[in-house]
């Protein structure tokens, strides 16, 4: 993909997001993550459940306040949503949620829900049915209600609604994990094609690495609130550098009929309320060194002491 030289569309710098529950320790769901998405670029964000992927996405939309760090969309800082109308500069960020059964209003016609998006963009000429056509559904579906559709069709409707607002940045938070295997690849490809076609950036979050590999230009691997590796998808796939990325990729069973059991990554994701000292991955890392237990590696393209050019203690 060619990336316009206008600087990143979305830039997340050192973002920290905390969940506070009375009587419980503060949970740092996102603990200093940095990420960039350029216009027309598809970035896949992967990681195990509980690593903070969704919290990061929600913070980018303004659904969660940031404890520290910055989120800029097209140069505008993102502020948490309030009761007032959303900052018009930020309506360019649109999200497709995980569960198409709860993210569409069951009592309103599909066309009316898509029209909401059109109104946001100030578009009075486009017919909601046009958008349904773009996502590959018949125009007549506009007058129906969500319950009349299958999961895959509903997710297409949710994509149509997000696209109606003319997004400059489309965010998919596990948009395919609630769908059938046969619909997953289709919806993922559709999101990619429509976002790239309209020149928008796409931040695609999924724990399904094979789908991310199919559609993403760049891949970002998240572990326990931090991004541990980023790079072009093909490069990361061919030569994963962080031990966690290697573990994730080795755990995918391939449908080749060879009967090879996937490699297991020992242990579970630690409690984000009480992360391990030093490198966050060290208790599960097969290549752990002394430095890993003491100090946290800086984030280059890879946050790992194995790949640190010069592990000097002054940095």
């Amino acid at each position, binding site marked *: 993909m060619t990336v316009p030289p206008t600087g990143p569309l979305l830039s997340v710098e050192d973002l920290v997001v905390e969940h506070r529950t009375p009587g419980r320790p503060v949970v740092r769901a996102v603990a200093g993550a940095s990420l960039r998405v350029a216009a027309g670029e598809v970035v896949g964000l992967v990681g*195990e459940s509980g690593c903070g992927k969704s919290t990061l996405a929600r913070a980018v939309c303004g659904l969660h306040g940031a404890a520290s760090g910055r989120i800029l969309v097209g140069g505008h800082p993102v502020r948490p949503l309030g009761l007032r109308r959303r900052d018009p500069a930020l309506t360019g960020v649109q999200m497709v949620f995980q569960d198409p059964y709860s993210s569409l209003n069951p009592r309103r016609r599909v066309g009316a829900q898509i029209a909401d998006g059109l109104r946001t963009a100030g578009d009075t000429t486009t017919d909601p049915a046009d958008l349904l056509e773009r996502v590959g559904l018949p125009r007549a579906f506009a007058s129906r209600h969500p319950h009349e559709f299958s999961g895959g069709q509903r997710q297409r409707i949710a994509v149509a609604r997000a696209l109606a607002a003319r997004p400059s940045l489309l965010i998919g938070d596990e948009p395919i994990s609630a769908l059938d295997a046969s619909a997953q690849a289709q919806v993922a490809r559709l999101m990619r094609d429509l976002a790239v076609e309209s020149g928008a950036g796409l931040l695609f979050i999924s724990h399904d690495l094979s789908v991310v590999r199919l559609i993403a230009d760049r891949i970002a691997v998240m572990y326990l609130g931090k991004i541990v590796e980023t790079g072009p998808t093909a490069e990361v796939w061919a030569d994963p550098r962080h031990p966690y990325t290697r573990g994730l990729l080795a755990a995918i069973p391939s449908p080749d009929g060879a009967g090879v059991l996937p490699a297991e990554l020992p242990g579970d994701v630690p409690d984000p309320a009480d992360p391990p000292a030093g490198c966050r991955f060290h208790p599960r890392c097969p290549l752990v060194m002394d430095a890993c237990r003491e100090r946290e590696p800086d984030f280059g393209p890879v946050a790992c002491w194995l790949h640190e050019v010069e592990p000097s203690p002054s940095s």
Partner: protein
Amino acid sequence: MTAGRKTAALTIEGLRVAIGGHDVLRGVDLTLEAGRVHGLAGESGSGKTMTGLAVLGLLPHGSRTSGRIEFAGRNLLETPVRELDEVRGAKIAMVFQDPATSLHPMLTVERQLTEHMRHHLGVGRKEARERAAGLLAKVRIPGPEEALKRYPHQFSGGMRQRIAVAVALACEPEVLIADEPTTALDVTVQAGILRLLRGLCDDLGLAVLLVTHDLGVMSAVADEVSVMKDGLVVETGPRGRVLREPRHPYTRSLLDALPVPPEEKSP
């Protein structure tokens, strides 16, 4: 893979199920053998789960069945409920998709592991407790003695699914039906559960029916693969043959729908 001795642990012949006048299964034939994993693939709505539920007599109320499900010399479809209760949970066990809902949230792990053990095997409280700790060790839960006192919410998703497997294994079943046991889990955790299932099958000689839509999972653990479509088994065969040289166009279309581009499949 060596074929080993071929003993049919459970045979399904011409199983038909209709719910509310709608045919869900239209003549399913399957054979499960001891020590082998039989994978059942297909899209949602193809009848995979219903096949599993039919074996345990857990079909929804008002469903009409015909055909045979033969286990230990009797047809489970015609067995009275009272006799069926001696079989299910004890000789035939099931692991469900979502470990968050298949375990009781308000009972300790010990209670969930020992209740059916004491009922089916008639063992005492102390012995049941010892066996429960042994089971947890077998599914590799760290600190089994401590874990017995805890509740499901205190475990992660992968650990909960391991506990659900332990619950299923408590009465030393001959047949294990695993309905999408790893779909709700991350790939790293999935790898652990698959290794566990394969190991149990090899060590204990369990006959496993693995229901999954993930052909990668299928390829990793199943010996035999059956593909279902619209309530019928359209193809059955050894894993390598079905996944590499599918004979039925539907199996081919399932393989073609996989997200990995075929030209990039090289490791």
